[in-house]
């Protein structure tokens, strides 16, 4: 077991895309999720770790040495099972290549099939299995040679929603039990927040933010992360500030103090769930007109207008469309960003 260290890794493609100057360190046994929109380079980074691509520059070290194919297994988006082989032949293929004796092969195939929760007859062919069963075969095949790192590329994306969420739970449990390092690529933020010990948000080939999921969610380091992570997405407003005094959006004074070093034009954000109908300490009121309401199962998502600016709120009670409503902003949960760089400005409460 060892740590994975990625240093200044660059791989650009002539047709565009790839990654630039990515550094990342992953501790042994950690579940790392690479999250980002399509084309952000997350799959390229994964393929570089797998050795399926060569970097233009930079290094990938594992346990202090150059990374080797033997310490890695990978689960592909469409599982990439060998269609002409039975389940048993699929799982035992890596062992066959390593000339493992027949008895031991059988033993290890059974073990990893059990670990992956695979209960089907091993003599069947992949085409006879359901999506979830194929996923388990792919996992068992990845596990059978006891790799130190398991790479997964959108491995749940082709399954239906219900199966996806149950396999998500299993996968996390599986990782805890086996103690392997996982690097998992997804564009689904729900999956990312649920699975990650360490969440890596990527954008246009660069790492935007690295941290625990709670940290990324509560304290996004850039406007992009703020907008990308969280559902319903964070409200982001273009605002004008006067130093130390006011923040106005569309001429409406928010009666909140801007951070110390705020520029004249600023972006500020607040998550829909940090708006409420109850007044309280540290909360400032704003008047909105409700345009439409969606029931999410536990809460109501309110789409409203503040003057001419759209705003989303997540409330615990239903309100009528067209209603005039006073919402309260939790000023402790505001996020400020510099519109010229997109980076976070530390607010005075936290500084």
């Amino acid at each position: 077991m060892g740590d994975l260290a990625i240093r200044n890794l660059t791989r650009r493609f002539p047709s565009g895309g790839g990654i630039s100057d990515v550094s990342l360190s992953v501790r042994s046994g950690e579940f790392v999720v690479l999250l980002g929109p399509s084309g952000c380079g997350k799959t390229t980074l994964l393929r570089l770790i797998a050795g399926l691509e060569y970097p233009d520059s930079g290094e990938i070290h594992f346990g202090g040495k150059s990374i080797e194919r033997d310490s890695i297994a990978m689960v592909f988006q469409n599982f990439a099972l060998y269609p002409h082989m039975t389940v048993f032949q699929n799982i035992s293929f890596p062992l066959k290549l390593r000339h493992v004796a027949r008895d031991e092969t059988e033993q290890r195939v059974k073990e990893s099939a059990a670990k992956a929760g695979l209960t089907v007859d091993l003599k069947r062919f992949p085409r006879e299995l359901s999506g979830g069963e194929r996923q388990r075969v792919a996992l068992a095949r990845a596990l059978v040679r006891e790799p130190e790192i398991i790479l997964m590329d959108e491995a749940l994306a082709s399954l239906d929603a219900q199966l996806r969420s149950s396999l998500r739970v299993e996968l996390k449990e599986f990782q805890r039990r086996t103690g392997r390092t996982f690097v998992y690529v997804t564009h689904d933020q729900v999956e990312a927040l649920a699975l990650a010990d360490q969440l890596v948000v990527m954008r246009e080939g660069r790492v935007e933010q690295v941290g625990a999921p709670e940290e990324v969610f509560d304290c996004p380091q850039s406007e992009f992360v703020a907008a990308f992570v969280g559902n319903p997405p964070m409200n982001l407003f273009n605002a004008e500030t006067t130093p130390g005094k006011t923040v106005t959006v569309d001429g409406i004074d928010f009666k909140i103090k801007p951070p110390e070093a705020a520029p004249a034009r600023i972006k500020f954000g607040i998550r829909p769930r940090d708006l409420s109908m109850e007044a309280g300490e540290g909360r400032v009121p704003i008047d909105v007109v409700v345009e439409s309401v969606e029931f999410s199962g536990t809460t109501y998502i309110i789409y409203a207008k503040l003057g001419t600016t759209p705003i989303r709120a997540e409330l615990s009670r239903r309100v009528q469309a067209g209603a005039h409503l006073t919402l309260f902003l939790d000023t402790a949960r505001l996020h400020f960003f510099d519109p010229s760089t997109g980076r976070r400005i530390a607010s005075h409460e936290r500084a």
Partner: protein
Amino acid sequence: MNSRARTESSGLAAARFALNAFVLAAAALPLYLLAKQSVTPELETFAWPPHWMAHHLTLSHFVTVFAVNELRSAVLRSLGVAAISAAIATALGAMLAYAMARSSFAQRVGFSTVTGVRLLPMITVAIPLGIILATLGIYDSASGIGLAIVHAAIAIPTAALTLYAAFAAIPLEVEEAAWIDGASPLRIFLTIDLPLARGAIATALILCFILSWDEFGFALLVQQTNRTLPPLLYYYTVFGNVGPASALAMLMMIPAVCVVVALGPSLRGVLTAGSSR
């Protein structure tokens, strides 16, 4: 309205039936005459006016074919040449097709070369080929190995084009999985790609076999005395041995008949396999 539509469509059906019958007759008539000829005694063959049905039946032409040494060895030689050339062409064509399916450079070069070879009038290279084979000492050999090599060269484009789409249809992801599992590129080709393309490989083998089995020009030039079936059939015909020639022609149809009988309804799939995804 309804009844009129019905009359029209039944009129159309009748026209279609008549057309089908005509095309079938045009295709079947020569075959029927050939079959009749092969079992008609020599004297009746040239009867005037010609007999639509043979008045006497005989198997003597087939007996002749098997009794004459030259004929028997020609059958064996044709089988050997076709089998060997099909095997060589499919093996080399598979490698070319795989490269074309996996590399855009190989694809460009491969397609233009294959097309170029197919456009080249083959007979123009007959003399150099003859010299090469003579130098190698395999011109007009009893085994027909020289002709087998020539036929293999001619058949490679056919094999490669048949196999190309089959390899291109195998997801790259599956090969990458095998690579990560620890397989070498050769191992991936042998244990993943070839088994997955086995349908197209069978098709390529059949097409290349028939290509050689039926080939006349090079067979005539390369196997001057140790002949294969098509030139032999030609000599039998021009020297007036119509009966044995017909019997031989019937025998030459056996491989095609075998393919049709063995593969039956899936034949259409086989002949177009690999031609589209």
